[in-house]
């Protein structure tokens, strides 16, 4: 029973739930603030995303006549729930180790796809033509970026597993432990292609500017989110905040866990995420324009796929050769 309580705490309080939500919203606030500074503006307060969520809580939720009401209202709930669970799956180096009962890296890959699916369902259930366009764009983008991320994850699993002398391991905890002992993968030239492919993946998954095609505000009026208002929209905002934490901490766990423990480890982990957001999200978002869906599709099938395939081959060759 104690075990199930621990899981519940991991999902609802730390590192999932409240902690991840607060972290995700703060990251978003920092992103907006720094983006404003880069553009020569003052920008909103750091806590602005919290205000937005509270505000949306006071608004009315409207369901369009043409929408299928149950699906329309369930989609944000499913997306948020999947992300709550996903945060609890990712270890924080030296601070938190997920219960192996909840799942491993493969479960995480499936959970990572759910917010995109929830958005697609939301867009198609809303009965709005813009939602439908958002749906089709989200689907095309997902098809393009899901392949490389799977290859990247397999490459990391192969590298860790073969180096430890057994099958590829899909336990994130084991991957993190290996890196804490032998140095982070981001410093290992063998894993650079994988890290580069992951760097292309996460703006697409988070829906930020070069790849925010499904939710393009100026083209399809936020696409799937067009018909949402009030608490349902707040749930989507919470979902994307949690997703930012999930994707960033996955990147940290796969490539750059630090050999630290306790409070220092936690602070360093938060710091790593902040740096990743400011460099990888804010600077890119401010300096780049949005791609067209066909450009993004071709781009993902070209570079990240090539990089991830190369990383898989290199990791397999190197580690197998090292083991032999």
């Amino acid at each position: 029973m104690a075990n199930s309580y621990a899981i519940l705490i991991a999902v609802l309080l730390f590192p999932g739930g409240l902690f991840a939500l607060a972290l995700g919203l703060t990251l978003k606030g920092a992103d907006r603030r720094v983006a404003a500074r880069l553009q020569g503006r003052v920008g909103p307060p750091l806590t602005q995303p919290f205000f937005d969520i509270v505000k949306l809580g006071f608004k009315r939720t409207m369901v369009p006549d043409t929408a299928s009401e149950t699906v329309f209202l369930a989609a944000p709930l499913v997306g948020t729930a999947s992300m709550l669970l996903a945060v609890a799956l990712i270890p924080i180096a030296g601070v938190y180790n997920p219960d192996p009962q909840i799942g491993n890296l493969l479960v995480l890959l499936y959970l990572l796809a759910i917010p995109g699916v929830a958005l697609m369902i939301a867009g198609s259930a809303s009965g709005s033509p813009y939602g439908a366009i958002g749906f089709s764009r989200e689907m095309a983008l997902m098809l393009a970026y899901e392949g490389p991320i799977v290859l990247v994850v397999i490459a990391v699993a192969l590298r860790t597993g073969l180096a430890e002398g057994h099958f590829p391991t899909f336990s994130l905890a084991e991957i993190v432990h290996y890196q804490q002992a032998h140095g982070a993968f981001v410093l290992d030239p063998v894993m650079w292609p994988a890290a580069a492919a992951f760097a292309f993946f996460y703006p697409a998954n988070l829906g930020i500017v070069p790849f925010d095609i499904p939710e393009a505000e100026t083209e399809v009026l936020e696409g799937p989110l067009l018909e949402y208002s009030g608490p349902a929209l707040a749930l989507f905002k919470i979902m994307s905040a949690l997703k930012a934490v999930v994707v960033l901490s996955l990147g940290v766990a796969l490539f750059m866990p630090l050999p630290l423990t306790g409070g220092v480890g936690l602070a360093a982990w938060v710091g790593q995420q902040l740096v990743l957001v400011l460099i990888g999200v804010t600077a890119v978002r401010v300096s780049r324009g949005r791609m067209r869906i066909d450009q993004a599709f071709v781009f993902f099938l070209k570079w990240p796929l090539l990089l991830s395939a190369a990383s898989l081959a290199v990791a397999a060759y190197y580690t197998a050769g090292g083991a032999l």
Partner: protein
Amino acid sequence: MNFLSLFARNLRRGPYTEPFPFGPPSPTPKRLRGRIAFDAATCEGCLLCEKLCPSGAIKFTRTPEGMTFDCWHPTCVFCGTCEFYCPTKAIHQTNDWHLAHFQSEKFGMTEHGLIPNLVCADCGGKGLNTVPNTAKVRPPLSAEEVVQLRARCPKCRNKFLKSRGKKP
């Protein structure tokens, strides 16, 4: 990599943002066409502005006290035609742009002026205390003459000008 130098410059220089509405607004250009100001003491009463106003914001009304001037800002398009054609510049555009108001104040957003009645110094008849039109009078009237002229009703003003040997 042009954008990197731009980022560095923006971060180093700090925001370009004006402090308004948290602080005082930056100085307004002097010639900004804003709120209309009307000076009843220098008005000629020619009603040119009312005729020319493209949006019909200016309205003169005869009342028992005299003639009132009203410019309703919510329909004024701030084109400046009234000031341009006003012979005595009694109507003037300030550079005040603080015109945003609550709906309850909508019909109070007027510039109001009253040109009072006067009793003619010659005949005791009724007239309006407007500035006399003396632009075309040759030789030009002296300041005292203008004051005398102003105290008369329109008919007596005409007589006065005829007595100067010139048609007004």
